[in-house]
């Protein structure tokens, strides 16, 4: 009992370890501590930051939700989706249309948006998931464009100029109007997304995703319904995007089809890939990089997206698993 590292300590409370380094080496305890610290820091950011910083941080949380949603499709199930902005658009437009044209309460539009985006995921995924991965990529790209073009051409979606005057939500008679309010809304959303992602990853379904991703044939031989499992990934990913879209519409109060262009889908995908596919902290880092990189390099002007693209290429060539990849067992 001299070296506590070598003993398989099952005591999480750590009473056997008299502090020091060995306490740090216990993963669960340490991870909880880091998470609590990060959450606390995130909680107190509005106290020290100006509106500009808050706006950016709100954006970060928003992209965390989107990237975690896409991560279910790309990272967990290993399917390349190049049209993820379509689901985000579906959520945003559902809320936009229902609140601005039918006067429905914002909170009631969320379940509707969940249903609609799940249906969209089902419609897109259903017929296409039997395809090869590169075909799937192109089909999702086509679907993304179709959704955007429909939003652009229809009357009810406001055409090319989009929807304006989406009402801001109220909660217990208190209207969310300041950026600080939305900061907390998106922070809560991001934490919720992390929690759901984490639970999903370690569920039966999560293990099935991993199996299908690593070896489809073997997974099928073990009795996993390949298409159903992939479809779950698609639908759940779509719901994440849809919910993020609802809150996006509420925050911006105006949406236009240009927000949901192909570049948006690519950006979300980059967030997932950059940090490390299939790993929640990796994806969060990716989302941070995604939002902060263009802000930090604002001076570069129109060159900044080019620099971003080059960085992306270099990461793919030298670290194809991302900055902080998931451990392969």
């Amino acid at each position, binding site marked *: 009992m001299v070296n506590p590292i070598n003993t398989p300590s099952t005591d999480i409370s750590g009473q056997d370890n008299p502090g020091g380094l060995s306490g740090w080496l216990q993963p669960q305890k340490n991870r909880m501590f880091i998470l609590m610290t990060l959450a606390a820091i995130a909680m107190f950011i509005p106290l020290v930051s100006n509106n500009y910083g808050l706006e950016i941080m709100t954006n970060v949380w928003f992209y965390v939700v989107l990237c975690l949603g896409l991560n279910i499709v*790309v990272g967990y199930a290993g399917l390349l989706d190049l049209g993820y902005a379509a689901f985000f658009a579906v959520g945003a437009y559902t809320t936009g249309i229902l609140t601005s044209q039918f006067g429905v309460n914002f909170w009631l539009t969320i379940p509707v948006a969940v249903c609609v985006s799940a249906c969209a995921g089902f419609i897109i995924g259903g017929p296409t998931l039997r*395809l090869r991965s590169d075909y799937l990529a192109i089909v999702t790209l086509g679907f993304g464009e179709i959704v955007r073009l429909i939003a652009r051409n229809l009357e009810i979606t406001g055409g090319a100029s989009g929807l304006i005057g989406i009402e801001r939500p109220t909660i217990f008679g208190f209207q969310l109007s300041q950026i600080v309010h939305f900061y907390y809304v998106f922070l809560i959303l991001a934490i919720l997304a992390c929690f759901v992602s984490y639970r999903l990853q370690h569920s039966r379904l999560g293990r099935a995703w991993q199996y299908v991703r690593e070896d489809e044939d073997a997974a099928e031989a073990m009795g996993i319904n390949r298409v159903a499992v992939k479809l779950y990934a698609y639908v759940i990913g779509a719901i994440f995007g849809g919910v993020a879209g609802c809150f996006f519409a509420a925050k911006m109060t105006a949406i236009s089809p240009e927000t949901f262009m192909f570049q948006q889908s*690519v950006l979300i995908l980059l967030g997932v890939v950059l940090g490390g596919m299939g790993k929640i902290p990796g994806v969060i880092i990716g989302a941070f990089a995604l939002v902060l990189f263009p802000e930090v390099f604002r001076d570069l002007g129109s060159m900044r997206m*080019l620099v971003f693209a080059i960085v992306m290429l270099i990461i793919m060539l030298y670290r194809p698993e991302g900055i902080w990849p998931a451990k392969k067992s």
Partner: protein
Amino acid sequence: MSIQDILLQQLANGLILGSFYALVALGYTMVYGIIKLLNFAHGDLYMLGSFVGFIILSFLSDYIGSGWAGILCTMVLSMIVVGFLGVLIQRIAYVPMLSAPRLSILITALAVSMVLYNTVMAFTDGQYLAFKTDLGFEGIELGNVFVTYTQLILVGASISLMIVLQLFVHKTLYGKAMRAIAIDQDACRLMGINVNKIIALTFFIGTSLAAAAGIMAGTYYGSIHFFMGFVIGLKAFTAAVIGGIGSIPGAMLGGLLLGLLESFGTQIPFIGTEWKDVFSFGILILLLVFKPTGILGKTEIERM
């Protein structure tokens, strides 16, 4: 105009559009056929072709003008320049990734595409550039349908490029090597074929055809833009899939077919021009779902 004239006019428009699609689709199909890589950057190479052509033409126009002679020279030069660029991209970005998982190589291709269009965007500030030529608008009337000489020559040029390609692939030793590599790379290596060189050659040819299409599009539409490659890349992929991906005659057929479908599709009541893209992406999806091998593609048994 009677209904026949409208249909004839759409036939002419469709053939022109279709020959652009076919030229770009050829590059997709050749690269896919040989290394099973979906080159997302292909549409951007088409765009790059038109921009390189724009630069070359602005130099050449002082010496030989920007009539047909100037455009022909521009086309040849920019096919060579962009072709080598295609090979360079293949060497830098795709060769190291060939043994990587499918997902990684697709994302790499996506990153290459981003690098290309962001480069052009940074240099042009996202503006449209006028592709100035002295071609005029003379033409001939076939019945009640007016076709400019430019249109005729462009269609002629793309058809002759396709014929040259077909002859190259089927009559030369290099073409034979290409076809062999598409079937079995390892066996080719054992038979003493320099596989890497042939793959590079395939990239060169595919890319330069896209560049040719880019210049033709610049000549035809009169303006070029950094994002012009995106939609055509998607459409050309559709064309390649319609014909059967991996098949060279299939890409030509698919391109022409898609061009015709699109231009006739806009004439159907309730489907205006704003629904044109929805129409062709819809075709793509239906096709991939119901007949992923396309018209001329071979049925291959493989895991999905």
